[in-house]
């Protein structure tokens, strides 16, 4: 992509000394100095992320719920008002166009949040599928900024934020629920959602109020260990939490069940939905499945590295790859390397010893359940 889009908060990040990376045509903060410090802040205190590059699409009208049941893999009609749901936008062949979070934001209204890199296909698919339904699909991505406050201190920070009215509801707000609040003269939608594996909130705010809200949150967070955090820490946080990233764990060539997302597809719901017949047929029985891998030492497997069957004596023959890593890093929280990988199912079922190839060196790998990290229950 040639256009360098920037967030309405861009100048704040420049002033804060952020370094930037291109993400789906957007120049977004990758770090404000130390991605490790940002990662640890979210696990132990709080971090604030600008994720305004995400796409927001509203679906309104009498048929909104029925339309979403047809357009998406989940049963959105079963989502009560002010609840949110993770879902998938499938194509006819069962491949994943995008993974989404949908908020039932008002009576007869849903807010669909898509990945920045899938803005165009998500809007196109939803618009095309609206044919025959009494709904209006509106792309409001340019009108909204999205600020995420994540970490155990998040609630205290929102409650202390000057100008944010309605925070009394936060104490009772459940995970994957949302509530309307006001900031200044405008309304904001606050979801208890996130992409880090910690408690936290995502705040959808008018682009014109975004700078003031960011500043108010940062000011309130000063006493609670809040620091700005970039996409580098966001990636290691979501990886530890076992959350898939589109383009890595998910794609048009991935069936949901391969990614461990079979539960997200509601085959029990009435009526047809796009992708149903392909999903019912299922992927090939030899189709690779997503697993978690851990290794010893400090050298992490990275996206694209091969997974091999290891020989018992630790020496791997020059054999064929039985899988490929889709995301990997040295886990900042756990201290050892973690990775997600697609691996041949027979290898997993037979519990064969595995090794990953890290730039020519075979390192023994253990298959572990996802997520790698789960926050302690309160």
């Amino acid at each position: 992509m040639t256009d360098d889009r920037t967030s309405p908060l861009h100048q704040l990040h420049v002033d804060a000394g952020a370094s930037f990376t291109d993400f789906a045509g957007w120049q977004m903060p990758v770090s404000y100095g130390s991605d490790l410090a940002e990662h640890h802040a979210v696990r132990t205190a709080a971090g604030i992320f600008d994720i305004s590059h995400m796409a927001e699409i509203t679906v309104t009208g009498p048929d909104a719920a029925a339309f979403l049941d047809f357009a998406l893999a989940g049963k959105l009609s079963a989502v009560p008002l002010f609840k949110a749901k993770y879902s998938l936008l499938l194509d006819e062949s069962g491949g994943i166009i995008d993974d989404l979070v949908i908020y039932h934001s008002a009576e007869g209204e849903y807010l669909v949040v898509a990945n920045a890199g899938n803005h165009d296909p998500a809007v196109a698919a939803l618009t095309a599928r609206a044919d025959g339904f009494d709904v209006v699909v509106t792309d409001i991505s340019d009108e909204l900024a999205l600020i995420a406050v994540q970490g155990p201190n998040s609630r205290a920070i929102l409650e202390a934020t000057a100008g944010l009215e309605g925070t009394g509801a936060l104490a009772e707000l459940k995970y994957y629920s949302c509530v309307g609040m006001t900031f200044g003269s405008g309304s904001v939608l606050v979801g208890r959602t996130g992409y880090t594996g910690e408690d936290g909130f995502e705040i959808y705010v008018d682009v014109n109020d975004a700078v003031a809200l960011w500043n108010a949150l940062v000011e309130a967070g000063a006493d609670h260990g809040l620091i700005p955090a970039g996409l580098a820490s966001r990636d290691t946080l979501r990886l530890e939490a076992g959350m898939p990233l589109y383009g890595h764990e998910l794609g048009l060539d991935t069936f949901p069940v391969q990614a461990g997302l079979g539960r997200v597809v509601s085959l029990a719901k009435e009526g047809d939905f796009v992708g149903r017949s392909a999903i019912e047929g299922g992927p090939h029985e030899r189709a690779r499945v997503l697993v978690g891998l851990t290794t010893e030492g400090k050298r992490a497997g990275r996206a694209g590295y091969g997974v091999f069957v290891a020989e018992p004596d630790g020496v791997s023959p020059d054999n064929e790859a039985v899988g490929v890593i889709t995301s990997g890093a040295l886990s900042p929280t756990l201290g050892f390397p973690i990775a997600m990988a697609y691996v041949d199912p027979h290898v997993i079922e037979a519990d064969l010893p595995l090794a990953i190839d890290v730039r020519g060196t075979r390192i023994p790998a253990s298959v572990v359940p996802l997520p790698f990290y789960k926050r302690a229950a309160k």
Partner: protein
Amino acid sequence: MAELTDLQYTAEHEWVLVEGDVATVGITSYAADKLGDVVFVELPAVGADLAEGSIVGEIESTKSVGELFAPVNGEVVEANDGVVSDPSLVNSDPFGDGWLIKVKFTELPTLLSHTEYSALVGE
């Protein structure tokens, strides 16, 4: 720590401090910033013979992997154990305690001056 203007540089974002026939080698602050927080460093062993331009080590951050290229032909006379045990030194003091290896060389190739390197990275 030497003045940055006393150092020589490579296009692979390494710095070289020449003292007699020994070159001390590290990566520049520009390279360290681009990598992000360094979490793993692998260096060649003392006594290893290095061929100029070959990959002799790795500098790995949470998000990517950088390679250490030998800037000169020669023999490794010292590797910085401090940076192996505390890789964050590469970020906190890339031109000082974050040095990587010392190489005894016989002939020095043409390297970049501070002015030339600054122009290369646009600073």
